[in-house]
């Protein structure tokens, strides 16, 4: 575990140098909202930002991704046969990603990389990407990462952690991919590890102390799924929801997708688009039956999946990193912190008969 100091003069030069061997992505301000974008020549990431409006999952897992190509032209001998396409998996680096978003990729990886099936699209994109995190200096009121197993200085999912120390960045390498990036950027100004680690530790405590909102998740695991499912608070919680996909598309830990074919003339492609459990079409059967036809059932599915089904299935923490995007972007202010506390504190009223 190496810690080096990058003084800010050769920050821009180092980034430019790294563009030689990485496609570099970073946060850029684009009329009122920050988004992750591939940085062109001379373009620098805007590192004193809070967080991007949408999560950086679209870099690894684009909203619309072509899976196969095919031709319907009968007089071609490979007509109607699906063919894989050439995708550019040359090395990429995401700089300035927040620790919560990086940790989210690990939670999502459990779904795309299962013992029986490996999703080649997602995994190829993920494994060829280096994650250079930027520790959070001043979290928002809607950030509750510390109580979801994450934190402003967390290192899970990161290959390199940068800590902004005013005139310089401390760079803490976490994996070999991080070291490769440092080498590519030409940053290797040695520094004495103890004092820097001490400084990072104090900055970490300061940042964690600034978190003002929390969720309680301790009792979720030993609650019965069917009890939570039949709880009375769902009706009232889901009333306001308009079933749009804003929360699921902004969320770094949401991964559901739809597969569609699109044809133009004789050529066609099979594409994978983001999908949302909020839409009725998500579970509509060919016979017209829909197991989740009402608004309440869909809202319940979203929260139950993140806070109960996923932890039960993988035996780990909740499927949420506390980034707060779904709270900030919900037009009717449905708040996952309120729902999580409701679920965590819910006790079945045992009717004394």
């Amino acid at each position, binding site marked *: 575990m190496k810690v080096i100091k990058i003084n800010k003069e050769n920050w821009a030069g180092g980034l430019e140098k790294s563009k030689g061997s990485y496609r570099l992505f970073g946060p850029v301000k684009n009329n*009122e*909202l920050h988004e992750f974008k591939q940085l062109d020549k001379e373009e620098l990431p805007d590192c004193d930002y809070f967080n991007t409006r*949408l999560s950086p999952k679209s870099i690894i897992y684009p*909203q619309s991704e072509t899976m196969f190509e095919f031709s319907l032209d009968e007089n071609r001998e490979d007509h109607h046969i699906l063919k894989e396409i050439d995708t550019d998996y040359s090395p990429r680096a995401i700089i300035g990603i927040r620790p919560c978003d990086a940790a989210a990729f690990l939670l999502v990886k459990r779904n795309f990389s299962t013992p029986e099936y490996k999703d080649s699209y997602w995994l190829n994109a993920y494994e060829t990407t280096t994650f250079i995190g930027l520790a959070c200096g001043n979290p928002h*009121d809607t950030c509750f990462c510390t109580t979801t197993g994450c934190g402003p200085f967390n290192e899970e999912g990161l290959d390199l952690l940068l800590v902004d120390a005013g005139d310089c960045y401390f760079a803490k390498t976490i994996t070999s991919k991080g070291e490769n990036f440092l080498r590519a950027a030409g940053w290797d100004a040695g520094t004495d590890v103890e004092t820097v680690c001490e400084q990072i530790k104090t900055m970490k405590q300061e940042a964690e102390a600034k978190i003002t909102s929390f969720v309680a998740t301790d009792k979720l695991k030993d609650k019965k799924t069917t009890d939570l499912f039949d709880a009375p608070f769902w009706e009232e919680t889901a009333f306001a929801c308009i079933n*749009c*996909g804003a929360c699921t598309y902004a969320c770094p830990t949401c991964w559901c997708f739809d597969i569609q074919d699109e044809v133009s003339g004789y050529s066609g492609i099979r594409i994978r*688009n983001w999908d949302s459990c909020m839409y009725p079409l998500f579970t509509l059967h060919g016979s017209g039956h829909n197991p989740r036809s009402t608004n309440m059932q869909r809202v319940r599915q979203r929260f139950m999946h993140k806070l109960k089904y996923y932890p039960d299935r993988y035996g780990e923490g909740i499927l949420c990193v506390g980034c707060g995007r779904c*709270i900030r972007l919900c037009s009717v202010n449905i708040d996952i912190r309120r729902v999580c506390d409701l679920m965590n504190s819910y006790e079945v009223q045992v009717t004394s008969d």
Partner: protein
Amino acid sequence: MSERGAKIREISERLLKEGKIDMVIGFRKGTLPMMNEPCLVKSPEDVKNLVWDSNCGINLAKYLIGRKEKIGVVAKGCDSRNIVTHLIENKIKRDQLFIIGVPCEGMIDRRKIASMFEKEIKEVAEEKNKIIVRGSGFEKILEKSEVLQKNCAICIHRNPVIYDELAADIVKEQKNVDRYKDVRQIESMPPEEKRDYFNDLLSPCIRCYACRNACPLCYCPTCFVDESRPQWVGKGIDLTDIKTFHFLRAYHCAGRCTDCGACERACPLGIDVRAFTMKLEKDCFELYGWEAGMSKDERPPLDTYRPDDPNDFFK
């Protein structure tokens, strides 16, 4: 503003106690600055949650569709016009409703205010027509009229057109307001510029359908977007599909849209989706002299015709 909240609570409590209504649909305080959450109040004790301030931009008429109970609904000017549209389109019966009309003084644009400050906003309060914005280490007072939602700034029907009881006395309507300045500005562009304008406008769109789902006018069991035989619109983020979706969504609101701004308020990326509906509202007004939701007896423009309708571009 808070007298309105108090009056709403008082009316709701009385109605619930008298059993005239089974529930009240209103707003409760949000967990974020400048945000309120639509809520359902069924018992007189919970009436204390009901609030009213300048952050009630979501249109509550959306929550009436398909309900059978007797409902007390809080409705500002545009909401009440949408309720009239619901009545015309038989989506709800008038005797089901007890409409608590709220003469409106305009809703503030939370994204506009947030973009005026670098640091995070912790709290937003309002007195008379001043908005006090407080954050860590700063406090600023803004003129409410400068930070109104775009539709509220040009609104000419602030008072409810239909109500059973008012939560405040009638407010003065805004006079000599040019509602179609933005529309004319786009209309004056040559076609290429218009195309670029709408391509840039819609490029951030992530097809989350918040604009469609926040709108009280959109209640089709199967939206044209979900039709598969034939499939009119692709499901991906191809710009042609996005433009087709927004075109048809707006077109379905022609002659029905009351410009309540809920679509723009709901868009997570702050896209000015009213650019489509305002053009249709201007055409409906100039071609057929129609304003949506103003009277229960007149048929909406696309549901009727006149032999002497404008006919010039038909050769």
